[in-house]
């Protein structure tokens, strides 16, 4: 029986992009459904009644919600190709720790950088750079967070880079200048097909952010 895999997603979502990369890396055929978040589909509301959010992976009719839960599900279900988490429990714990860190810090900082002004924005910019430097420390001399190859942490973080141009434009600063090592890692990831075909154009993301600012009356 063939697997039926559907990904309910929204094109600029960093969390959705994580799932796209993982599925592509493992060669899983799936149907991509882009949601209109102002007009959520019946399927989304049925598959994620609790949070009503994307991404949702629907595998043979059964939903999996929350991007990190989805990533681990994908890794465990299609375990024969391109394992994302390493096999050593300590390294797995480190990968999970850093993804947890990124999720707790980065998304909120990003939101503040594009949607606030003045002191709040300056603080967010400063903290974002500090976060990236911390991640640079974790990367060390390795080509990827996963070592020689793309791993769980790489897949989880690289989608945020599609929002960097928007952050830089809104915050009037350069992340490239402050965190060149991080940017170099982003470029290395983009050389991998499963990443480049899953990530969206940063200029399109900026266009989307401008629309959001207009819709929320943010100058």
């Amino acid at each position, binding site marked *: 029986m063939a697997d039926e895999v559907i990904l309910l997603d929204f094109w600029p979502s960093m969390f959705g992009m994580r799932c796209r990369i993982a599925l592509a890396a493992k060669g899983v055929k799936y149907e991509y459904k882009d949601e209109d978040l102002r007009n959520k589909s019946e399927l989304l509301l049925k598959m994620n009644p*609790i949070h009503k959010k994307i991404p949702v992976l629907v*595998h043979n009719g*059964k939903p*999996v*919600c*929350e991007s*990190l*839960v*989805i990533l*681990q*599900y994908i890794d*465990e*279900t299609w375990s024969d190709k391109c394992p994302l988490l390493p096999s050593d*429990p*300590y390294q*797995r*714990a*480190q990968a*999970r*720790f850093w993804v*947890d*860190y990124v999720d707790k810090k980065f998304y909120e900082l990003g939101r503040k950088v594009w949607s606030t002004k003045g002191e709040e924005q300056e603080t967010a910019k400063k903290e974002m750079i500090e976060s990236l430097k*911390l991640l640079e420390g974790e990367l060390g001399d390795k080509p990827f967070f996963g070592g020689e190859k793309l791993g769980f942490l790489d897949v989880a973080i690289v989608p945020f880079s599609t929002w960097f141009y928007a952050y830089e434009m809104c915050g009037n600063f350069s992340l490239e200048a402050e965190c060149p090592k991080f940017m170099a890692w982003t470029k290395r990831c983009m050389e991998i097909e499963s990443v480049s075909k899953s990530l969206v154009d940063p200029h399109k993301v900026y266009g989307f952010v401008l629309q959001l600012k207009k819709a929320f009356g943010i100058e």
Partner: protein
Amino acid sequence: MADGGEVKLLGFWGSPYALRVIWALKLKQVPYDYLEEDLPNNKSSLLLQYNPVHKKVPVLVHHGKPIAESLVILEYIDETWKQSPLLPQDPSERARARFWAKFADEKCMPAMKAVFCSEGEEQQKAVLEARETLKTLESGLEGKLFFGGETINFADVATGYIGFWARIVEEITGTSLIDAESMPSLDAWSKRFLELPIIKECMPPWDKLIELNSGFLKMYLASLK
């Protein structure tokens, strides 16, 4: 038994997150050394060294290598000591367990904290919202004895603290969060879980928990003035 090696746990007796790590270690009969941190004001240099990013407990140290964040620690414990497995085998069931663990931490606990830290009308609103999150948590049980079915699993160990935390908040604030009438399944589950011998014997004394958290509330309210 799997290799124990040297296992240390940096914790705080009043932390529910440290407690759930203790539950996991006890369930798997993993011997460990416990190091009590003098929180909140006197963090040891060991804690700051082992968890420089968050500077929080719990931290598990295994063969000298630190692991922070209690849910990350729970997964590490389950993968390192394979006896009495916490996560089920099936990927879909594992996803379910992880989902509810996350939900309790990200929705139920902050909602209960909001009840704790508010007063009057604001508190009444917070109570309604907290009860909503708890009702949703109850739906995860699907009418079973435990999240794991007949026996406990990862989700029970991860979310079990919600049961007693709700009662701490209820007692200190005089509100009602989990009641047998509107949440019969959750109410029964929380009592059933906390009665399990291994779980029960690790629980800090109730009056001390009340005293500790009442103290935190006083400090918090004072800081607002």
